[in-house]
């Protein structure tokens, strides 16, 4: 064993460049894989831990204000809940802070503790007086509302002031950038903050074990059956909250896992090419080793160890690095949960990754190394060099027909002289370029979807009104402004849909809503009351398709609906409905819109318009320019994609570089001969670069359809995880010119990578090489 190790280390010292290639390649792929595995293993646990610790509610239900609280108090026993909280009297609270106005469901609670939904105080304290309020830390951080801030309530005529005295972590809500937030006051404070239209009741339920989605649906059905019709106005279960909480990490984990596999495949290809090349270059040496007494296994071991040693070093660095890089994402999750951040990793998992990574490298290296082991000693000593590769004649002929310069023709012929090596190199290029395609395409798809969700380019101003301010007045103010081109008013109401346990949130639209830019995936936008659109998630869950009629209910009253289209919408992970406000004309109490999307005439100064409208009613309406910025989770995913593309592109470049290095070393004799007969150094570089260019061109061209397919697939996976089908526009984010330029860029990068081996070849000392025999 000592002899094997000594020989392997000596060879490693001699082949430093190749050792670096292996080190960097394995480092990048192991690091990426570790990040994926760490995220996968650690994202579930913190939420579960926090959920159990804070006795999260499996089910949160809101009830019609007319429901008898005594009946509500009896519901836990009726449905088999193991613990409950409430009934809480609650209200929809509108308040103003700074120049912004907000709406939050606000609950009356005596204490943050209890049997269910323990609120973890992250700062400050619980209210002690009726003019004190507690917010979620997520909301406070997002909107820069500090402890001690004074909020002016605008949803009641008295416009009382509330002081923020505490921030809590509520395990039963998603983060503020993705979900609406709750607030809490003392129970006695609620009446003063309530209007008849805004109050409601709420209860939290816990059940034995971890109930499944169908079990939770059953509980809601039993709850509904135990109360008068129309009592339940809304409900949400912990599975949805958990999904919303985890969605970013889930998507990231999926993307990272997929591309880790690619990185691993590329690494395997590079290792195989490298070992094959080393074996070829060391033919005579193998013969001598065998003559000296190395066994076949020993010879195989020598060549395998030369790869495993730098790979091991790379793993020892890459695994901690990957774990480290995943920490900010995990810290973000912990922060959102109110958990103290502790570095999250699993030693046993890291060891598993180490073993698995090394195993892959060993297998990739030992298979070609076996060739060396099985070589007959006399063959190796006598021949001194490995059998030459193919002539590449066909390729050269084709190139000659194109009238290319001779050095280019020779280089192109060399590129595929060893077909297996060429194929493996093309694979590494293919993976790199395909990843780049995805990294360009996915963010564009996200932007398209983001623009649809935020109405970018469709409307410029968002107006919200307090319940205390009539809809007609808002419309009067807006229509009075000559810069107003269009106003679409939006209201909301929960509707019970058969087959769906939780009432579904609806977007009730008034005005030319088809212009808002929601992406219709199938069917059409509604044109009359009663026609609805829904995302795929809802359609699937309710077993509905376009054209189906369904009878929903609102406040216990039936509502006839007809599905006319499928729309893209990620709110509540695809559980929402879009319809004309007039569909709810018969519903009582009357439903008025509370949000207004304003489209301005071209050339209008948005900020000036916002100022003028706000000045018309400074307290009871909130006016601001619409925010079309990309949400934080998408930014994170975009950044990770960029890093992945860089990693895999680097691996691709490494693959080409590695192959060129091997080729130029193998052909040093030919290069010397060519120089002797008159090939200039520049022509030598051109020859080497031509080989690189061809490999990159083939890999790049093959990568384009693969990249587009991956882009398509990832769009589908991500959209599906948000309860939607992918809108067709999200696929078509490339223009034809780009699809042609990307492979050409790959060629340019590969030819740049060829400069180093090319210059080395150009500096070949003819005398030394040709006369060394």
């Amino acid at each position, binding site marked *: 064993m000592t002899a094997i190790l000594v020989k392997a280390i000596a060879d490693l010292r001699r082949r430093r460049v190749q050792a670096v290639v292996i080190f960097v390649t394995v480092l990048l792929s192991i690091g990426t894989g570790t990040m994926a595995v760490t995220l996968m293993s650690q994202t579930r646990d913190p939420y579960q831990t926090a959920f159990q610790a804070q006795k999260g509610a499996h089910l949160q239900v809101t009830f019609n204000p007319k429901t008898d609280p005594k009946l509500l108090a009896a519901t836990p026993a009726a449905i088999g809940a193991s613990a409950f909280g409430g009934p809480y009297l609650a209200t929809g609270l509108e308040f103003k802070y700074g120049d912004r106005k907000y709406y939050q469901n606000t609950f009356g609670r005596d204490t943050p503790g209890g049997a269910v939904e323990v609120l973890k105080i992250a700062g400050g304290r619980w209210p002690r007086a009726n003019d004190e309020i507690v917010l979620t830390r997520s909301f406070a951080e997002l909107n820069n509302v500090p402890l001690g801030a004074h909020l002016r309530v605008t949803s009641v005529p008295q416009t009382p002031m509330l002081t923020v005295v505490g921030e809590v972590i509520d395990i039963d809500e998603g983060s503020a950038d993705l979900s609406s937030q709750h607030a809490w006051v003392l129970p006695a404070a609620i009446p003063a903050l309530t209007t008849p239209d805004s109050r409601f009741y709420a209860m939290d339920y816990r059940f034995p074990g971890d109930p499944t989605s169908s079990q939770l649906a059953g509980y809601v059905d039993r709850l509904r059956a135990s109360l008068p019709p129309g009592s339940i106005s809304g409900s949400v279960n912990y599975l949805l909250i958990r999904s919303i909480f985890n969605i970013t990490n889930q998507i990231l984990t999926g993307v990272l896992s997929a591309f880790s596999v690619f990185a691993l495949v590329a690494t395997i290809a590079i290792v195989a090419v490298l070992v094959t090349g080393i074996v070829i270059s060391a033919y005579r040496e193998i013969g001598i080793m065998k003559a000296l007494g190395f066994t076949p296994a020993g010879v195989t071991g020598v060549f395998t160890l030369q790869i495993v040693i730098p790979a091991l070093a790379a793993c020892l660095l890459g695994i901690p690095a990957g774990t480290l890089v995943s920490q900010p994402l995990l810290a973000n999750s912990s922060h959102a949960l109110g958990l103290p951040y502790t570095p999250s990793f699993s030693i046993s998992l890291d060891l598993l990754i180490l073993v698995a990574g090394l195993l892959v490298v060993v297998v990739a290296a030992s298979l070609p190394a076996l060739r060396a082991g099985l070589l007959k000693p006399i063959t190796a000593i006598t021949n001194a060099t490995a059998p030459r*590769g193919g002539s590449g004649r066909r390729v050269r002929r084709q190139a000659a027909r194109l009238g290319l310069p001779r*050095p280019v023709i020779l280089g192109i*012929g060399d590129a595929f002289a060893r077909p297996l090596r060429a194929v493996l190199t093309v694979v590494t290029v293919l993976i790199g370029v395909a990843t780049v395609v995805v990294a360009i395409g996915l963010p564009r798809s996200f932007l398209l979807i983001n623009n649809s969700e935020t109405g970018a380019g469709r409307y410029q101003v968002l107006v919200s009104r307090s319940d205390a301010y009539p809809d007609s007045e808002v419309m009067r103010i807006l229509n009075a402004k000559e810069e107003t081109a269009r106003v679409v008013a939006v209201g909301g109401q929960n509707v019970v849909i058969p087959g769906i346990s939780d009432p579904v949130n609806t977007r009730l639209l008034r005005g030319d809503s088809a212009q808002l830019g929601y992406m219709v995936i199938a069917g059409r936008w509604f044109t009359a009351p009663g026609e609805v659109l829904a995302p795929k998630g809802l359609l699937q869950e309710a077993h509905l398709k376009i054209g189906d009629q369904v009878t929903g209910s609102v406040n216990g009253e039936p509502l006839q609906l007809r599905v006319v289209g499928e729309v893209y919408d990620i709110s509540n992970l695809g559980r929402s409905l879009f319809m004309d406000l007039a569909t709810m004309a018969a519903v009582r109490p009357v439903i008025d819109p509370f949000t207004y999307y304003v489209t301005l005439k071209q050339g209008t100064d948005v900020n000036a318009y916002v100022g003028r409208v706000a000045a018309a009613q400074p307290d009871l309406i909130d006016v601001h320019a619409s925010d079309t910025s990309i949400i934080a989770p998408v930014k994170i995913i975009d950044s990770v994609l960029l890093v992945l593309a860089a990693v895999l592109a680097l691996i691709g470049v490494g693959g080409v570089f590695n192959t060129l290095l091997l080729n130029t070393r193998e052909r040093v004799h*030919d290069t010397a001969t060519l120089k*002797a007969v*008159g090939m*200039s*150094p520049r022509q030598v570089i051109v020859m080497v670069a031509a080989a690189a260019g061809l490999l990159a061109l083939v890999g790049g061209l093959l990568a384009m359809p693969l990249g587009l397919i991956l882009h398509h697939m990832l769009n589908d996976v991500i959209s599906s995880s948000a309860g939607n089908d992918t809108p067709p526009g999200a696929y078509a984010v490339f223009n034809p010119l780009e699809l042609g330029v990307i492979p050409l860029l790959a060629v340019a990068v590969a030819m740049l990578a060829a400069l180093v081996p090319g210059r080395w070849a150009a500096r070949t000392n*003819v005398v030394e090489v040709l*006369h060394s025999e």
Partner: protein
Amino acid sequence: MDRRAIGNGHLWGIGMSELVRLTEITKVYQGGVTGALNGVSLTVEEGEFTAVMGPSGSGKTTLLNLVAGLDRPTSGSVTVAGSDLGPLGETALARFRRDHIGFVFQFFHLLPNLTVLENVLIPAQLKSRVSSEAAGRELLAQLGIAELADRYPAKLSGGQQQRVSIARALINRPTLLLADEPTGALDTRSGDEVMELLRQLHRQGKTVLLVTHDAKLATRYAARVVSVMDGRIVDDARLETADREASDVIKVRGEETR
């Protein structure tokens, strides 16, 4: 002295232009420990068939490499076909070799992935894109290996490979043909055939500079034999008689060949 014209119709010493001039050439390798050439000066006239003879390590191959522009002297100057090679960069030297030098190696150094014809055409194709296939085929025919045009070097005998090597050396009509131990890797018969070829080329007007350790070979074919020993020229004999035998007086310091 027999001033019979040889080869290109010029009389010795009359109307011959100087093709190669080495002036006080010194070449030192390995940091000054080993001197391959030491103050060598030599001229070769156009149309000459000159053999540089000496034992292994004498510096003869180094001398040839310097003339070809494959190596640079440590000191001294090399002028070939009117060009001082000293100031030329690598690209210029490559062009110089394409234009003026045909090199025949001991071990042929054919490119194994190219056919015979492709090997022959390479220097021409490096020089110009104009097709020289016809010229290549003609050369192969002249050298008696036309039928081998589409074969690969691995399928040829040593003698055949050396003929291909000669054809490659001639494709650009070089000013000077350099041959480094051209028969060293061949059997006797093949070697004789190759040398006859070189003699024919010389008679057709080519200037030939041959390096060999074989005194018999040198005296038999060359009109002039330059003897090199330990990096110095120890003898420079012009053989002016038509019949040359090994017993003719060629004295190499410490050696006689008879």
